């Protein structure tokens, strides 16, 4: 491995009156979202950094209280819009926990496949745009070619590419179309080539290493203290992954491993994401091999819509349909916290029901919020270009950050 050149050297600070004060964003090509970063620069070294967020706040939590439980699902698409499926799954899992129901095995497997495909495209965006920010455009195209293919898969199951709204409380919007699994295997078969290409272009690339190794590091202790989860935490050597620590949907039955690195810097975060994509592919293949037949919705008309033949053919079906559309699902009064491993870390939903058709409270625990909070600490003392490289590696998605 090549020797790393230190990008920043400890330099004594110059007179504070000579520092330059600069706004980056809220609309800036390197922020990939509306984030305002205010920096005080001593030459090129960042001496002080302040953040302003909230530009993309769309009142998710307040709006949830005015809709029925199922009507919240489209709002969850717009949290982490890079991997919308995972938010859909995370939210309905919370409501299902509140209802005390378990979805059929087939639905669990399909949700796992969708989540892992979303994790792959999320990591594509994270690594791809991170590389673009430091001047490597090629990797971006190699990844986005495959990302389009995965979006085609999503489009085939739910009609939408980005904002999927695929899950329903107690099941799915629809079962997989015919031939989807073969198609999915074909798309998966093409992924290793793009991963190998990008790995070949970046992993031992002198410029990439110089730009990322030792850049914006965070210690294990600080990462825990700030509430880091996901790839950013695993890059600090903490092997916490909800899928392993608290398995849901049979994640413990699949053969895969948690990827960790020890350095906690931008390069380590890149390596973790790269490794995770290969693990996700393993999980998808196993889930496709073990996809049982059967219905995708729970057989309870107070939770999932009755089949159309029943709605038009029987009074019970019609009534159940009407009740569910007009009044919604009515979970018993209570509060639960449910958490899944999303692409950026632990995505938690704290849902409270008061027994009516609308949520009393929906609280999201966005992984980005905790991670982005540490950004000034990670960047002070480094250069602007290091901060740009670091921001991409944290994969801050403004939709999730601001909700």
């Amino acid at each position: 491995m090549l020797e790393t050149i230190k990008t920043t050297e400890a330099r004594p600070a110059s007179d504070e009156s000579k520092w330059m004060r600069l706004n980056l964003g809220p609309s800036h090509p390197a922020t990939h979202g509306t984030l305002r970063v205010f920096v005080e620069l001593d030459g090129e070294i960042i001496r002080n950094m302040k953040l302003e967020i909230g530009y993309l706040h769309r009142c998710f939590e307040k709006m949830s209280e005015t809709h029925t439980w199922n009507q919240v699902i489209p709002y969850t698409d717009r949290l982490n819009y890079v991997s919308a499926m995972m938010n859909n799954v995370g939210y309905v899992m919370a409501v299902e926990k509140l209802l005390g129901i378990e979805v059929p095995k087939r639905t669990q497997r399909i949700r796992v496949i969708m989540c892992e495909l979303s994790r792959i495209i999320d990591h594509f965006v994270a690594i791809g745009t991170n590389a673009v920010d430091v001047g490597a455009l090629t990797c971006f195209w190699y990844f986005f070619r495959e990302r389009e293919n995965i979006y085609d898969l999503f489009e085939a199951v739910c009609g939408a590419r980005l904002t999927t709204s695929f899950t329903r409380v107690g099941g799915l919007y629809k079962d997989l179309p015919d031939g989807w699994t073969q198609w999915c295997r074909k798309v998966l078969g093409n992924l290793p080539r793009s991963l190998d290409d990008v790995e070949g272009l970046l992993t031992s690339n002198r410029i990439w290493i110089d730009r990322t190794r030792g850049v914006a590091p965070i210690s294990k202790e600080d990462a825990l203290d700030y509430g880091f989860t996901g790839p950013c935490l695993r890059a600090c050597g903490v092997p916490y992954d909800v899928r392993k620590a608290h398995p849901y949907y049979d994640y413990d039955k699949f053969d895969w491993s948690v990827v960790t690195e020890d350095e906690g810097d931008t390069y380590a975060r890149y390596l973790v994401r790269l490794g995770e994509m290969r693990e996700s592919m393993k999980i998808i293949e196993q889930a496709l091999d073990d996809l049982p037949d059967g219905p995708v919705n729970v057989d309870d008309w107070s939770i999932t819509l009755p089949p159309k033949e029943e709605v038009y053919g029987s009074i019970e079906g019609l009534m159940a349909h009407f009740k569910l559309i007009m009044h919604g699902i009515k979970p018993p009064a209570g509060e639960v916290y449910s958490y899944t491993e999303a692409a950026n870390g632990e995505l938690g939903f704290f849902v409270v029901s008061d027994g009516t058709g609308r949520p009393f409270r929906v609280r999201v625990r966005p992984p980005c919020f905790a991670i982005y909070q540490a950004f000034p600490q990670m960047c002070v003392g480094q250069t602007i270009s290091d901060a740009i490289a670091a921001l991409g590696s944290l994969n801050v998605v403004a939709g999730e950050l601001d909700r």
Partner: protein
Amino acid sequence: MQETGTKLGESKCPELLEAFPQAILSVDDYLGDLSVSVRAADIRPIVHFLKETPSQCYEFLMDLFGMDYEGYAREMPGRFAVVYGFYSYSRKARLRLKAFLTQHEIDSIHDIYKAANWFEREAFDMFGIHFKGHPNLKRILCHHEFKGHPLRKDFPSNNYQRLRTALPSTEL
């Protein structure tokens, strides 16, 4: 139902009950979620205990948010609460702490968990809960000129406000 939930919950956190017998209002275990309601005045020693005691060892403050129980189906010890979600990676254990407020204020825990800083700002922004000792208690998600605290139950969801000035960099 409620009774067994309480008993089950108490058996899950004996040390906490022993250390703070006065502060704890109730313990509940609903669907596997351990939830402890406490008095707001004792929040700092309790949080300190949860982080530093080897038998507790909650490394993560996963979440911190406000709650407004106005109009809730069940009787609650107060209208406003601050909810803390702790997670111990080494013990694979979770604990939800609910601090019920008597006034609109509670001690900040930003110096115990660094994660608390922004989460407390958010709870201030959304519910108007004042965190005593917080270094930068300002709105975080809403615009700085926004009036009201939107997640309170008496705040109408169609309250639109026209706001356009950017926050000066000196006030960040």
